[in-house]
């Protein structure tokens, strides 16, 4: 038995690149989001596009756009810090909207608070012109199977 397991344990771990993961997800392309990687630090960018508007009168980004962007950022950060072979499934998200999203580029950074054997807890902040003035905060749990 030990001999059968041994090669698996010594096999190099193939960690998926968050950028490759995002390219494989059609909805990430629909949003048009990008990732800026600096070592293990990841900043997600959502370039402004007219189809992301929720309220054309203000105008403001759709709240669902901001939360979707933040959910994707949380996932990308997880791929950076953990090894997965499947897209992690969200269990829940909690979003607080702090400011209206203006029709400009939006940025987000995520922190993995804890990645256990079955659940990961991730929080995300999104901002536009000033990082000290976040437009939204998101807290989420993912069901993960690190295999």
């Amino acid at each position: 038995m030990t001999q059968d397991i041994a090669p698996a344990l010594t096999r190099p771990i193939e960690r998926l690149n968050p950028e490759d993961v995002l390219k494989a997800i059609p909805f990430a392309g629909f949003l048009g989001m990008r990732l800026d990687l600096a070592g293990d630090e990841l900043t997600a960018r959502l370039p402004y596009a007219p189809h992301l508007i929720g309220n054309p009168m203000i105008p403001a980004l759709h709240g669902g756009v901001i939360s979707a962007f933040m959910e994707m950022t949380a996932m990308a950060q997880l791929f950076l810090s953990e090894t997965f072979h499947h897209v992690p499934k969200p269990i829940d998200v909690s979003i607080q909207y702090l400011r209206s999203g203006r029709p400009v580029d939006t940025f987000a950074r995520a922190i993995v608070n804890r990645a256990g054997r079955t659940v990961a807890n991730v929080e995300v902040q999104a901002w536009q012109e000033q990082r000290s003035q976040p437009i939204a905060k998101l807290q989420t749990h993912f069901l993960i199977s690190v295999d």
Partner: protein
Amino acid sequence: MDQAAFSDMFGTIIDNTPYMKAIGAVYDGRSDDGLTMRLPWREDLVGDPETRVIASGVVTALLDNGSGMAVWDRLNEFKPIATLDLRIDYMRAAEPDRDLLVTAKCYKLTRSIGFVRAFAYEDTPDDPVAAAQAAFIIASPSLTPKG
């Protein structure tokens, strides 16, 4: 305002919300259970290429939008509202190639806050893909531009 006139306006509102139009969401009527939106499955909204399941972020947007409209429905007028927070539990994956429905109901309205419960499902809210709990702030004089 009578119900029929209200229904017409919800359809118009969704058609004039760029992001809802972009994902292909439509108004699907109202009942005592709340008002309903419908989203046909589409390839570019997929969040997991392996399973072809729609991205959780799309479900979030639909729940957010439906919840906001539920507040207007309960108010029986179109005051400016903003999502304060949104909590979503994802119970299971949405089925590929099937329409996703969201039914939202504002179960409590105070002078300044609307509390909403919403469900995303294919067949019946008893078998939900996701459930949402949201709080909306309703425009008070301080939110109205001074003119």
